[in-house]
């Protein structure tokens, strides 16, 4: 068979048209598949939002109002907290040898617990030492004298372990202690004096689970005249899931004020 040019042309044209037809069909199928997938997604979302029931079409708006009501309460609470803070933070210095303090209100910190906050007035004529140490948890501490008498670990699960001390200058101070939980396995305990970091100590364990803390408290100003011992402030322990393998090795952190130095190192401050 001999093909004329015309025939060749005609067949080429046909082949071109066939491939065009096939391509357009393929493109159409793809587009249809895409539309079907989108339809599925939309059906899913409509089900989640209950769009088709006349009774529930507004349900999502009501759910939004549910959350907004909680946010409104939060704003009222925060407003009140400012007033509480003012109310419970005023401090009236007494005399040259009386230390005065107040236990201040605190708010929960993102990723952490409330923490502890103290306002401390150090008198002119009395030396006051702020101390920090890690000791066996089973020894209980409630007074400055008990704390001064403890045996401290310089190497423990808390890093760094101290012990540390510093002489507090006369005047108004704010001591803040924050217990942060960045992960399941770490706690970071931060100490801040007058908005400057004194110390950050951390503990890491297989899984950290709560803990306990005891602090000096009280709703009003507490005064410690010259003839009275300075106060113990805080003891806290970190809980480990399953408990500590050796109860004798379980550490606790204590913070207290003392009338005399113990020859501890100074607080590391901001340098890491």
């Amino acid at each position: 068979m001999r093909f004329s040019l015309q025939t060749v042309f005609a067949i080429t044209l046909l082949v071109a048209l066939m491939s065009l037809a096939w391509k357009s069909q393929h493109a159409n199928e793809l587009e249809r598949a895409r539309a079907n997938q989108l339809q599925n997604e939309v059906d899913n979302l409509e089900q989640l939002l209950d769009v088709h029931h006349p009774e529930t079409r507004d349900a999502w708006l009501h759910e939004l109002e549910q959350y907004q009501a909680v946010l409104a309460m939060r704003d009222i609470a925060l407003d009140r907290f400012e007033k509480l803070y003012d109310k419970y933070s005023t401090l009236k210095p007494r005399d040259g040898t009386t230390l005065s303090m107040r236990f201040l209100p605190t708010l929960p910190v993102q990723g952490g617990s409330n923490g502890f906050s103290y306002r401390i007035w150090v008198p002119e004529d009395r030396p006051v030492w702020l101390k920090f140490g890690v000791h066996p948890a089973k020894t209980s501490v409630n007074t400055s004298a008990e704390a001064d008498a403890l045996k401290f670990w310089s190497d423990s699960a808390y890093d760094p372990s101290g012990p540390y001390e510093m002489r507090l200058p006369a005047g108004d101070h704010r001591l803040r202690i924050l217990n942060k939980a960045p992960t399941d396995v770490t706690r970071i305990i931060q100490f801040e004096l007058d908005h400057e970091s004194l110390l950050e100590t951390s503990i890491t364990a297989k899984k950290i689970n709560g803990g306990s803390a005891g602090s000096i408290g009280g709703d009003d100003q507490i005064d410690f005249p010259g003839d009275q011992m300075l106060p113990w402030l805080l003891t806290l322990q970190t809980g480990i899931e399953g408990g500590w393998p050796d109860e004798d090795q379980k550490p606790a952190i204590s913070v207290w004020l003392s009338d005399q130095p113990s020859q501890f190192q100074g607080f590391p401050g901001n340098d890491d």
Partner: protein
Amino acid sequence: MMTDPVEPDRASGSRHPRFRVFRFAALTAIGAALLWYTAGQVSKKRREEAKSTRLIARRDRYQAKLDRLENAAEEADRARRIILGVLRECRVAEDIPQLSKHHVVSQNQSSRALLFHVPSGKHVLEIQAKWGPSMADSSATPKESSQIEGARKTVVGGEKTWTIPLPAHSGYRLQMPDTRGDDALEWRLTSNHKDFVTRAEDLPVEGFRRIGWSYGTRGIVGFPNLIRNVSSKRLQAAVGRPSGQQLWEVTLSGKRQDQPFRVRYAIRLISDCPAYATARAVRQMRSWMPAGLQWDYQGAGKYALRQRGQNSATD
């Protein structure tokens, strides 16, 4: 040689003209069919594209709603912690702010006190105290003295329940006994409502010395008589017979006359209002809602459970 000359092309093509026409027509028809088919496919594709565009717009609208809900839910979760944190810092009842007309908010301060706020409506606080000798290991609940082996049968176990009406939309502070010595086991309820008279009661137990204590720490931010995601049967049971909610429990353990002794308090709020559920819970329960019941929306994400056809009573 005189044969009829075979007309080469013309002869084989004596059918040519018609064959050619036929072939041309056939090819043209096929071509036209292909073109027509292609055109059809292209137009269908355009329609599908238009449909997709509409679907995308709808999907994005729905997704925006869901994202908005999810963000609000997360923020509300964080807000809850702050609300409870502030409540924990209220040292007297007057410190408690007017939080909400709809929500019960409750938080304990370690073992010392419970601070709570009640919304509109009629509410009653029920304080139930149970006391008695306990087993040496502190896992048992208070048992009557008859269960102590060979004990002197002095009956020291007992229980007492107080119910105290609470003016609405107010804050309250329930202070628990702080017995370090031999003080009476007294609880004290104060309020920031101007007409509320402080109430204090003690237990007829002397000589109790507290050594330890345990208490719940769960904070509450929610509607009174709150129904969570429950079965259809529980929904049926909850309508018209709301059960109240447990706010707190505290157990003081120690010694009385050298015997292990325990005092347990359970504190409940009983509210004279329908059972309520959050908008979120109502959505989840929708598919098994019993026929005779309905949800009435009352604002702030709160739905009241009622019999169908029942008038909404004013809350």
